[in-house]
Protein backbone atom coordinates (compact mmCIF):
# COMPACT_ATOMS: atom_id res chain seq x y z
CA UNK A 1 0.00 0.00 0.00
CA UNK A 2 1.32 3.47 -0.82
CA UNK A 3 1.94 6.09 1.89
CA UNK A 4 -1.15 7.91 0.59
CA UNK A 5 -3.14 4.71 0.87
CA UNK A 6 -1.93 4.10 4.41
CA UNK A 7 -2.88 7.66 5.33
CA UNK A 8 -6.35 7.23 3.83
CA UNK A 9 -6.89 4.06 5.84
CA UNK A 10 -5.68 5.84 8.99
CA UNK A 11 -8.05 8.74 8.47
CA UNK A 12 -10.99 6.41 7.80
CA UNK A 13 -10.10 4.39 10.89
CA UNK A 14 -9.88 7.54 13.01
CA UNK A 15 -13.14 8.92 11.65
CA UNK A 16 -14.77 5.58 12.39
CA UNK A 17 -13.41 5.64 15.93
CA UNK A 18 -14.49 9.20 16.48
CA UNK A 19 -18.02 9.01 15.12
CA UNK A 20 -19.02 5.55 16.33
CA UNK A 21 -20.50 5.48 19.77
CA UNK A 22 -19.69 2.29 21.63
CA UNK A 23 -22.79 0.18 22.16
CA UNK A 24 -23.55 -0.20 25.82
CA UNK A 25 -23.24 -3.83 26.93
CA UNK A 26 -26.66 -5.39 26.93
CA UNK A 27 -28.21 -5.69 30.34
CA UNK A 28 -28.06 -9.23 31.63
CA UNK A 29 -31.68 -9.47 32.67
CA UNK A 30 -33.19 -12.67 33.96
CA UNK A 31 -36.06 -12.35 31.50
CA UNK A 32 -33.73 -12.12 28.51
CA UNK A 33 -31.65 -15.14 29.42
CA UNK A 34 -31.20 -17.86 26.77
CA UNK A 35 -33.66 -20.77 27.06
CA UNK A 36 -30.90 -23.37 27.37
CA UNK A 37 -27.95 -24.29 29.58
CA UNK A 38 -28.36 -25.96 32.94
CA UNK A 39 -26.80 -28.28 35.48
CA UNK A 40 -24.42 -31.09 34.62
CA UNK A 41 -21.91 -33.46 36.17
CA UNK A 42 -18.44 -34.06 34.73
CA UNK A 43 -14.98 -35.03 36.03
CA UNK A 44 -12.48 -32.39 37.12
CA UNK A 45 -8.71 -32.25 36.69
CA UNK A 46 -8.24 -34.07 40.01
CA UNK A 47 -10.32 -36.95 38.68
CA UNK A 48 -13.17 -36.03 41.05
CA UNK A 49 -16.83 -35.62 40.09
CA UNK A 50 -17.83 -32.01 39.55
CA UNK A 51 -21.44 -30.86 39.59
CA UNK A 52 -22.35 -27.37 38.43
CA UNK A 53 -24.70 -27.03 41.39
CA UNK A 54 -21.66 -27.12 43.69
CA UNK A 55 -21.13 -23.52 42.61
CA UNK A 56 -24.63 -22.42 43.53
CA UNK A 57 -24.49 -18.91 44.97
CA UNK A 58 -21.49 -17.93 42.84
CA UNK A 59 -21.37 -16.89 39.17
CA UNK A 60 -19.29 -18.85 36.67
CA UNK A 61 -17.71 -18.39 33.28
CA UNK A 62 -17.73 -21.46 31.05
CA UNK A 63 -16.29 -22.25 27.67
CA UNK A 64 -15.76 -25.34 25.55
CA UNK A 65 -12.32 -26.11 24.13
CA UNK A 66 -9.48 -28.60 24.14
CA UNK A 67 -5.98 -28.52 25.52
CA UNK A 68 -4.33 -28.95 22.09
CA UNK A 69 -6.25 -25.96 20.71
CA UNK A 70 -3.39 -23.83 19.38
CA UNK A 71 -4.84 -20.35 19.19
CA UNK A 72 -8.45 -19.75 20.13
CA UNK A 73 -8.63 -21.42 23.55
CA UNK A 74 -5.53 -19.68 24.97
CA UNK A 75 -6.92 -16.40 23.62
CA UNK A 76 -10.32 -17.04 25.19
CA UNK A 77 -8.65 -17.78 28.52
CA UNK A 78 -6.63 -14.61 28.18
CA UNK A 79 -9.80 -12.56 27.57
CA UNK A 80 -11.51 -14.07 30.61
CA UNK A 81 -8.44 -13.39 32.76
CA UNK A 82 -8.37 -9.76 31.55
CA UNK A 83 -12.09 -9.36 32.36
CA UNK A 84 -11.66 -10.81 35.85
CA UNK A 85 -8.76 -8.45 36.46
CA UNK A 86 -10.99 -5.52 35.51
CA UNK A 87 -13.68 -6.75 37.90
CA UNK A 88 -11.14 -6.60 40.73
CA UNK A 89 -11.39 -8.22 44.17
CA UNK A 90 -14.95 -9.46 43.65
CA UNK A 91 -13.72 -11.61 40.78
CA UNK A 92 -12.61 -14.11 43.42
CA UNK A 93 -16.28 -15.16 43.63
CA UNK A 94 -16.29 -16.12 39.94
CA UNK A 95 -15.32 -19.66 38.89
CA UNK A 96 -13.90 -20.27 35.43
CA UNK A 97 -14.83 -23.62 33.85
CA UNK A 98 -13.09 -25.16 30.85
CA UNK A 99 -15.08 -28.06 29.37
CA UNK A 100 -13.03 -30.25 27.05
CA UNK A 101 -14.59 -31.34 23.78
CA UNK A 102 -11.66 -33.72 23.26
CA UNK A 103 -12.23 -36.35 25.97
CA UNK A 104 -10.04 -38.82 24.11
CA UNK A 105 -6.85 -36.81 24.76
CA UNK A 106 -7.96 -34.55 27.58
CA UNK A 107 -7.65 -36.84 30.57
CA UNK A 108 -7.81 -35.29 34.05
CA UNK A 109 -3.99 -35.32 34.10
CA UNK A 110 -3.81 -33.46 30.78
CA UNK A 111 -6.35 -30.93 32.06
CA UNK A 112 -4.41 -30.47 35.30
CA UNK A 113 -1.26 -29.52 33.40
CA UNK A 114 -3.24 -27.25 31.08
CA UNK A 115 -5.29 -25.26 33.59
CA UNK A 116 -2.18 -24.85 35.74
CA UNK A 117 -0.60 -22.86 32.88
CA UNK A 118 -2.96 -19.93 33.25
CA UNK A 119 -2.75 -16.90 35.50
CA UNK A 120 -6.26 -17.46 36.87
CA UNK A 121 -7.71 -20.46 38.72
CA UNK A 122 -9.59 -22.66 36.26
CA UNK A 123 -11.51 -25.88 36.75
CA UNK A 124 -10.85 -28.24 33.83
CA UNK A 125 -13.67 -30.67 33.08
CA UNK A 126 -13.86 -33.82 31.02
CA UNK A 127 -15.93 -37.00 30.90
CA UNK A 128 -16.89 -39.87 28.66
CA UNK A 129 -17.67 -38.89 25.08
CA UNK A 130 -21.39 -39.25 25.87
CA UNK A 131 -21.17 -37.11 29.02
CA UNK A 132 -19.34 -34.35 27.16
CA UNK A 133 -21.82 -34.53 24.27
CA UNK A 134 -24.74 -34.14 26.67
CA UNK A 135 -23.28 -31.01 28.28
CA UNK A 136 -22.43 -29.51 24.89
CA UNK A 137 -25.99 -30.16 23.69
CA UNK A 138 -27.36 -28.56 26.86
CA UNK A 139 -25.44 -25.37 26.01
CA UNK A 140 -26.18 -25.61 22.26
CA UNK A 141 -22.47 -26.04 21.62
CA UNK A 142 -21.14 -28.16 18.77
CA UNK A 143 -17.79 -29.74 17.95
CA UNK A 144 -16.25 -32.02 15.33
CA UNK A 145 -12.89 -33.77 15.15
CA UNK A 146 -10.92 -32.77 12.05
CA UNK A 147 -8.39 -35.44 11.10
CA UNK A 148 -4.98 -34.08 10.08
CA UNK A 149 -3.29 -37.37 9.28
CA UNK A 150 -1.30 -37.24 12.52
CA UNK A 151 -2.16 -37.77 16.19
CA UNK A 152 -2.42 -33.99 16.43
CA UNK A 153 -5.94 -33.78 15.08
CA UNK A 154 -7.94 -30.56 15.39
CA UNK A 155 -11.37 -30.09 16.90
CA UNK A 156 -13.69 -27.45 15.48
CA UNK A 157 -15.83 -26.17 18.29
CA UNK A 158 -18.23 -23.52 19.47
CA UNK A 159 -16.21 -20.60 20.66
CA UNK A 160 -18.69 -18.80 22.91
CA UNK A 161 -17.97 -17.61 26.43
CA UNK A 162 -20.99 -18.49 28.62
CA UNK A 163 -21.86 -16.57 31.77
CA UNK A 164 -23.75 -18.49 34.45
CA UNK A 165 -25.49 -16.68 37.30
CA UNK A 166 -25.56 -17.41 41.04
CA UNK A 167 -28.57 -19.70 40.49
CA UNK A 168 -26.72 -21.79 37.91
CA UNK A 169 -28.71 -20.37 35.00
CA UNK A 170 -27.10 -19.47 31.69
CA UNK A 171 -27.58 -15.73 31.47
CA UNK A 172 -25.58 -14.53 28.49
CA UNK A 173 -22.96 -15.62 26.01
CA UNK A 174 -20.31 -13.75 24.06
CA UNK A 175 -17.88 -14.31 21.24
CA UNK A 176 -14.50 -15.70 22.29
CA UNK A 177 -12.82 -12.42 21.31
CA UNK A 178 -15.29 -10.17 23.10
CA UNK A 179 -13.70 -7.11 24.68
CA UNK A 180 -12.63 -7.69 28.27
CA UNK A 181 -14.52 -4.52 29.30
CA UNK A 182 -17.81 -5.94 28.00
CA UNK A 183 -17.28 -9.26 29.76
CA UNK A 184 -16.33 -7.43 32.96
CA UNK A 185 -19.46 -5.29 32.80
CA UNK A 186 -21.70 -8.37 32.43
CA UNK A 187 -19.87 -10.12 35.26
CA UNK A 188 -20.34 -7.11 37.54
CA UNK A 189 -24.08 -7.32 36.87
CA UNK A 190 -24.14 -10.99 37.90
CA UNK A 191 -22.03 -10.24 40.99
CA UNK A 192 -24.38 -7.43 42.02
CA UNK A 193 -27.27 -9.88 42.27
CA UNK A 194 -28.17 -11.53 45.57
CA UNK A 195 -27.26 -15.14 46.14
Amino acid at each position, binding site marked *: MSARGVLAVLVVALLW*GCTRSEPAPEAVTEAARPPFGGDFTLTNQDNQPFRLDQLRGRPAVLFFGYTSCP*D*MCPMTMSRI*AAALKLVGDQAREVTTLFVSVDPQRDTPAALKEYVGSF*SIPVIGLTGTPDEVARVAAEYHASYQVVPTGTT*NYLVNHTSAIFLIDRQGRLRQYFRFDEKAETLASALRTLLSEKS
Partner: protein
Amino acid sequence: MTRQTACVLLMALTGATASAIAAQAPRPKTGAIAVHDAWVRVSTARRTSSSGYCRLENTTDTPVALIGIAAAGVGSAQVHTMVDRDGQMSMHPVEKLPIPPHGAVDLAPGGTHIMLTDIARPLAIGSTLDLRFTFDNGSTQTVRAVIRPLDAMSIR
Protein backbone atom coordinates in the same frame (compact mmCIF):
# COMPACT_ATOMS: atom_id res chain seq x y z
CA MET B 1 -11.58 19.43 25.48
CA THR B 2 -14.56 17.78 23.85
CA ARG B 3 -14.28 14.33 22.33
CA GLN B 4 -14.89 15.82 18.88
CA THR B 5 -12.12 18.41 19.30
CA ALA B 6 -9.76 15.74 20.53
CA CYS B 7 -10.52 13.60 17.49
CA VAL B 8 -9.96 16.46 15.06
CA LEU B 9 -6.66 17.25 16.76
CA LEU B 10 -5.67 13.59 16.70
CA MET B 11 -6.44 13.35 12.99
CA ALA B 12 -4.46 16.52 12.28
CA LEU B 13 -1.49 15.26 14.30
CA THR B 14 -1.58 11.81 12.70
CA GLY B 15 -1.76 13.32 9.24
CA ALA B 16 1.23 15.51 10.03
CA THR B 17 3.20 12.60 11.45
CA ALA B 18 2.46 10.37 8.46
CA SER B 19 3.53 13.17 6.09
CA ALA B 20 6.72 13.74 8.06
CA ILE B 21 7.57 10.03 7.97
CA ALA B 22 6.89 9.91 4.23
CA ALA B 23 9.17 12.93 3.69
CA GLN B 24 12.02 11.62 5.84
CA ALA B 25 11.94 8.01 4.71
CA PRO B 26 12.07 7.73 0.93
CA ARG B 27 11.22 4.31 -0.42
CA PRO B 28 14.24 2.08 -0.75
CA LYS B 29 15.01 1.27 -4.39
CA THR B 30 15.48 -2.36 -3.54
CA GLY B 31 13.17 -3.58 -0.83
CA ALA B 32 12.99 -6.76 1.14
CA ILE B 33 10.71 -8.87 3.23
CA ALA B 34 11.10 -8.46 6.97
CA VAL B 35 9.68 -10.61 9.74
CA HIS B 36 9.26 -8.84 13.08
CA ASP B 37 8.20 -9.70 16.61
CA ALA B 38 7.99 -13.45 16.16
CA TRP B 39 6.75 -15.41 19.16
CA VAL B 40 5.33 -18.86 19.83
CA ARG B 41 3.23 -20.23 22.65
CA VAL B 42 4.76 -22.72 25.08
CA SER B 43 4.36 -26.45 24.35
CA THR B 44 4.82 -29.50 26.54
CA ALA B 45 5.58 -33.19 26.12
CA ARG B 46 1.84 -33.82 26.28
CA ARG B 47 0.62 -30.81 24.29
CA THR B 48 2.77 -31.01 21.17
CA SER B 49 0.98 -28.39 19.09
CA SER B 50 1.26 -24.64 19.43
CA SER B 51 0.76 -21.38 17.60
CA GLY B 52 3.08 -18.67 16.34
CA TYR B 53 2.69 -15.00 15.53
CA CYS B 54 4.66 -12.24 13.85
CA ARG B 55 4.45 -9.24 11.55
CA LEU B 56 5.40 -9.73 7.90
CA GLU B 57 6.49 -6.57 6.15
CA ASN B 58 7.00 -6.14 2.43
CA THR B 59 9.17 -3.12 1.61
CA THR B 60 9.39 -4.01 -2.08
CA ASP B 61 7.40 -2.48 -4.95
CA THR B 62 5.81 -5.81 -5.84
CA PRO B 63 3.38 -8.17 -4.13
CA VAL B 64 5.08 -11.04 -2.34
CA ALA B 65 3.44 -14.10 -0.81
CA LEU B 66 4.50 -16.30 2.08
CA ILE B 67 4.45 -19.87 0.79
CA GLY B 68 6.09 -21.90 3.53
CA ILE B 69 7.34 -22.02 7.11
CA ALA B 70 9.64 -24.59 8.66
CA ALA B 71 11.30 -25.10 12.02
CA ALA B 72 13.70 -27.75 13.24
CA GLY B 73 11.96 -30.32 15.42
CA VAL B 74 8.50 -29.22 14.31
CA GLY B 75 6.54 -31.73 12.22
CA SER B 76 4.45 -29.14 10.46
CA ALA B 77 4.23 -25.34 10.44
CA GLN B 78 1.37 -23.86 8.43
CA VAL B 79 -0.41 -20.55 8.18
CA HIS B 80 -3.99 -21.04 9.32
CA THR B 81 -6.94 -18.75 9.12
CA MET B 82 -10.06 -19.04 11.23
CA VAL B 83 -13.55 -19.28 9.83
CA ASP B 84 -16.63 -18.65 11.96
CA ARG B 85 -19.66 -20.74 10.96
CA ASP B 86 -22.57 -19.86 13.25
CA GLY B 87 -20.27 -19.55 16.25
CA GLN B 88 -18.31 -22.72 15.52
CA MET B 89 -14.72 -21.86 14.68
CA SER B 90 -12.71 -23.91 12.23
CA MET B 91 -9.15 -23.45 11.01
CA HIS B 92 -8.11 -23.66 7.40
CA PRO B 93 -4.60 -23.78 5.91
CA VAL B 94 -3.51 -20.82 3.80
CA GLU B 95 -1.17 -22.05 1.06
CA LYS B 96 -0.19 -18.58 -0.09
CA LEU B 97 -0.41 -15.51 2.13
CA PRO B 98 -0.09 -12.30 0.07
CA ILE B 99 1.76 -9.32 1.51
CA PRO B 100 1.03 -6.17 -0.50
CA PRO B 101 3.83 -3.90 -1.77
CA HIS B 102 4.92 -1.52 0.99
CA GLY B 103 2.44 -3.20 3.29
CA ALA B 104 2.39 -5.56 6.22
CA VAL B 105 0.38 -8.52 7.44
CA ASP B 106 0.00 -9.36 11.11
CA LEU B 107 -0.29 -12.95 12.23
CA ALA B 108 -2.02 -12.41 15.56
CA PRO B 109 -4.03 -14.29 18.23
CA GLY B 110 -7.64 -14.86 17.25
CA GLY B 111 -6.94 -14.43 13.55
CA THR B 112 -4.58 -15.75 10.91
CA HIS B 113 -1.68 -17.42 12.71
CA ILE B 114 1.01 -20.07 12.38
CA MET B 115 -0.06 -23.53 13.48
CA LEU B 116 2.79 -25.73 14.71
CA THR B 117 2.16 -29.44 15.17
CA ASP B 118 4.15 -32.49 16.23
CA ILE B 119 6.73 -30.50 18.17
CA ALA B 120 9.38 -33.05 19.08
CA ARG B 121 10.76 -31.35 22.20
CA PRO B 122 8.79 -29.07 24.55
CA LEU B 123 9.21 -25.37 23.86
CA ALA B 124 9.92 -23.83 27.25
CA ILE B 125 8.96 -20.28 28.19
CA GLY B 126 11.89 -17.94 27.61
CA SER B 127 13.62 -20.23 25.12
CA THR B 128 13.59 -19.60 21.37
CA LEU B 129 12.65 -21.37 18.14
CA ASP B 130 14.06 -20.48 14.74
CA LEU B 131 11.36 -20.15 12.09
CA ARG B 132 12.30 -20.20 8.42
CA PHE B 133 9.91 -18.32 6.15
CA THR B 134 9.91 -18.93 2.38
CA PHE B 135 8.41 -16.41 -0.03
CA ASP B 136 7.26 -16.77 -3.63
CA ASN B 137 9.99 -14.42 -4.87
CA GLY B 138 12.53 -17.05 -3.90
CA SER B 139 13.73 -15.29 -0.77
CA THR B 140 13.84 -16.81 2.69
CA GLN B 141 14.05 -15.29 6.15
CA THR B 142 14.98 -17.07 9.35
CA VAL B 143 13.88 -15.37 12.54
CA ARG B 144 14.23 -16.34 16.18
CA ALA B 145 10.83 -16.59 17.84
CA VAL B 146 10.52 -16.14 21.60
CA ILE B 147 8.55 -18.75 23.53
CA ARG B 148 5.82 -17.09 25.60
CA PRO B 149 3.27 -18.33 28.17
CA LEU B 150 0.10 -20.07 27.03
CA ASP B 151 -2.13 -17.05 27.71
CA ALA B 152 0.24 -14.44 26.25
CA MET B 153 -1.32 -12.14 23.68
CA SER B 154 1.78 -10.48 22.29
CA ILE B 155 5.56 -10.71 22.26
CA ARG B 156 5.79 -8.48 25.36
